[in-house]
């Protein structure tokens, strides 16, 4: 259990590491080129890992709905945005605002998709996140 907890924390650390490294590549190239290399190198890495472990096409992948295949193009924009932002507002604020956007849109998606949930807890959570964003809101102090 402790081992898995450490792995879960490490996964969060690696999110920052890849954003930091992609940001460094974007400093010398461009956010879009950095996103391209991130995807290509990641593809090679996952392909090798899948070949080593096996089971890449296990299950019923062909039965997936067509829209489930749209994660790639969305990811390209997401990674490019991260590389662009981290050089401008830093790692912590980038992570913080992305988390805020993810949590709030996740609640909205859950409501739209009709996922059951606790409205009170969702409201309190969203309110706390908005309060956190309000505190760093732009234009408060001199630039």
């Amino acid at each position: 259990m402790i081992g898995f907890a450490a792995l879960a924390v490490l996964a969060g650390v690696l999110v920052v590491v890849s954003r930091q490294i992609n940001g460094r590549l974007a400093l010398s190239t461009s956010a879009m080129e950095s996103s391209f290399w991130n995807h290509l190198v990641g593809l090679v890495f996952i392909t090798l890992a899948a070949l080593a472990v096996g089971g890449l096409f296990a299950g019923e992948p062909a039965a997936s709905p067509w829209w489930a295949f749209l994660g790639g193009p969305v990811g390209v924009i997401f990674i490019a945005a991260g590389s662009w932002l981290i050089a401008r507002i830093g790692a912590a604020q980038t992570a913080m605002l992305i988390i805020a956007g993810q949590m709030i849109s996740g609640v909205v998606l859950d409501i739209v998709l009709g996922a059951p949930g606790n409205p009170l807890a969702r409201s309190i959570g969203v309110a706390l996140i908005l309060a956190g964003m309000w505190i760093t809101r732009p234009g408060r102090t001199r630039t």
Partner: protein
Amino acid sequence: MSHPPRVYHFAAAFGAGGLLSLMVLFNGTLATYGSLFFSSWVPHLTGSVTALILLAFLRPKRATATRPPLWAYLGGISGGLTVMLTSATLNSALALSGTIALGLAGQVVFSLYADIRGLFGMPRKMPGARDYLSLSLIVAGSLVIIFFGGAS
């Protein structure tokens, strides 16, 4: 020292978080039909093609003439490892909520450290009191949603 983000930075980062929700939905759906490898392999494949097409059309200028260090091309490995770690912990006693919450903790603490030290050749940035307060509120709100917001 710390500059508050501009409105468009704010909007871009918040919007990127929204994109991340969509990615989780799309890739997570792939994972329910195919393997976890497949759910990460497909977006990396279609993403590489998409980025190549966008590069061909947009032709963004290179920021500097000097070559970036070779390690700067390896961010994708770290991203691929993230997917594998996450799929391992998702199937443990941590489940989805524990995996997300601990991942969040790792992101917040390490991003502060990365700013303070200027890790991987990025600019150093000292977080201010406002940043810490804001981070705490966002983390608190996220934890409430993760642990109490779902169906119980």
